[in-house]
């Protein structure tokens, strides 16, 4: 019989440990659960001035709609306010940004990782500086030329700017992944009959998948969550989801529909869960790397 160390701990400690985990989990998940629950209520309940418990029990929701849950927030946002259009725009932007970033990132990262010249180091250092800048600093500089050249407001413009902001990071990340792949692999492929590009394509990339997926996911998140660039560079009809949600919340000039924003927030979060769960194995092995040793 083997006893695990965990089993030998005193019960009081076990309870404390697990209790802490549960408390932490509830605190961490609470904002999302609260929003998710509240998104099926009416504004009067979710933002009740009388009693915060109304957001949970929902007396006004029952009074207004006849049932304790209502989908009016979702219908209003997706149908009436055409949130689906923003979702489509987001999809276009995100897919383009991920594809372009990964194409340049893998090619450039591979070249930098295998380069023996010193400029590779400086290039990466400059990339890091650009990565460290807040995106807004770049956008303010872009605004004038984009207006002048009539580029403002279009999706491709936002895509290019997002790629530019994202590329230093993808380069960094992919370069370090490529550096973890032994040079012998390229060399034996080249002796076996590959050109440099074939070695990259047939031998290195298959080994790199976890790294590519992890980097792709981070690019995805950057584009998906971006507010600064998309809010300032896209016209109203080309808006992506995040600026659209912001517009639901309203500004000092306009009155927003807060419940639309709440339901949209839930809609925006859902795909992220699916994505992370779907790719979790690759992400973990990508983040820990070292899985590439032959």
């Amino acid at each position, binding site marked *: 019989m083997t006893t695990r160390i965990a089993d030998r701990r005193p019960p009081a400690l076990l309870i404390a440990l697990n209790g802490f985990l549960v408390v932490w989990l509830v605190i961490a998940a609470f904002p999302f659960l609260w929003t998710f629950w509240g998104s099926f209520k009416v504004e009067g309940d979710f933002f009740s001035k009388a009693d915060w418990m109304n957001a949970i029990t929902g007396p006004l929701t029952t009074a207004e709609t006849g049932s304790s849950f209502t989908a009016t927030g979702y219908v209003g946002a997706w149908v009436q306010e055409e949130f689906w259009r923003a979702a489509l725009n987001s999809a276009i932007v995100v897919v383009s940004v991920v594809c372009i970033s990964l194409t340049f990132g893998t090619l450039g990262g591979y070249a930098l990782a295998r380069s023996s010249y010193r400029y590779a180091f400086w290039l990466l250092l400059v990339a890091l500086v650009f990565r460290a800048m807040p995106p807004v600093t770049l956008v303010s500089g872009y605004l004038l030329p984009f207006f002048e050249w009539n580029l403002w407001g279009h999706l491709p413009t936002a895509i290019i700017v997002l790629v530019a902001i994202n590329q230093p990071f993808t380069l960094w990340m992919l370069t370090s992944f490529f550096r973890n792949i032994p040079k*012998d*692999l390229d060399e*034996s492929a*080249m*002796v*076996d009959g590959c050109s440099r590009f*074939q070695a990259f394509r047939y031998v290195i990339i298959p*080994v790199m998948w976890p790294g590519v997926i992890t980097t792709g996911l981070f690019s995805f998140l950057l584009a998906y969550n971006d507010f600064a660039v998309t809010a300032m560079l896209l016209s109203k009809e080309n808006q992506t989801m995040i600026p659209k949600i912001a517009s639901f919340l309203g500004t000092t000039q306009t009155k927003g529909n807060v419940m639309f924003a709440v339901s949209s927030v839930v809609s925006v979060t859902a795909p992220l869960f699916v994505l992370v769960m779907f790719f979790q194995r690759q992400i973990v092995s990508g983040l820990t790397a070292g899985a590439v*040793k*032959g």
Partner: protein
Amino acid sequence: MANIELRNLSKRWGSFTGVQTLDLTISDGEFLVLLGPSGCGKTTTMRMIAGLEDATDGDILIGGRRVNDLEPKDRDIAMVFQSYGLYPTMSVYENIRFPLKVRRIPEAEHHDRVMRAAETVELTEFLQRKPAALSGGQRQRVALARAIVRKPKVFLMDEPLSNLDAKLRVSTRAQIKNLHHELKTTTIYVTHDQIEAMTLADRVVVMRRGEVQQVGTPLEIYDRPANTFVASFIGSPAMNLIEGVVTAGIFEAPHVRIPGLQAPDGPVTLGFRAEDAALADGGEITAPIYSMELLGDSSMATVQVGGTLVAIKAPKAFAGSIGQPIAAHVPARICHLFDARSGARLSA
């Protein structure tokens, strides 16, 4: 099948010289070993032949054709790397097949050739496994199979045994030797292990700091080392080297007096092999035992002479204790003389 010619081959990185004007002809079907300590330029030489490193100066000819400007893939070579360089995402079968696939060899031939290569190195049971699920020795055999599957003009092997444990090294060494006997492909083999060099090579090239020290058959190199570096690198144990002075044909150093040498008067370095000497009363060397090592088939007695340790082979039954004075018979005919300053071999 092809011979290889290296003409004036050099490799420099800035002011550092990796390989210095190397001239070498390797004949068709020869097994040539590049031997030397790490940093001696042996791997660089091989990598230049493979095309993985550009030569700074000089020409490389394979089968009479200058290949300096050809990509590695166009040189018709196969290489076995120290770290195997197997493709981790492919099965053993796909690994061996890879060279055929990228070189567009008709698909109908693939299976037969992969199976034949796998049989040669006894890998047929493991074809569906990934490299990660293989032991070091098996991985090395996959690398070998991948090299032989295509029948290239030249095999290049870069310390292929150094990641294996001692026992496996011996058996894989025998396998490589046998493989070369069967395929008769020109082979260049890089190692820092002189035993591998002695057992495998048709000819050995001993290198040091980018320069060739001696080229010859293993026996030549063992029997007539060109200088003190080669003498101290080859053999196990390496040759004993004693610094002393010759006066009228008599070599003298502390505890040592060897008459009958044919050498001009002056300082020299005298060398002899432990296995050529024997314990005998009234011998040329008389000194107390420094240490005793039992080797199994014999014993090794070490004495201190001047500042250096000198090993002398003794019978297995010889039981000397440390500090006990012994005498060894070192006749002039087993001695090698080297220039005291340059280390170069003197006379015969």
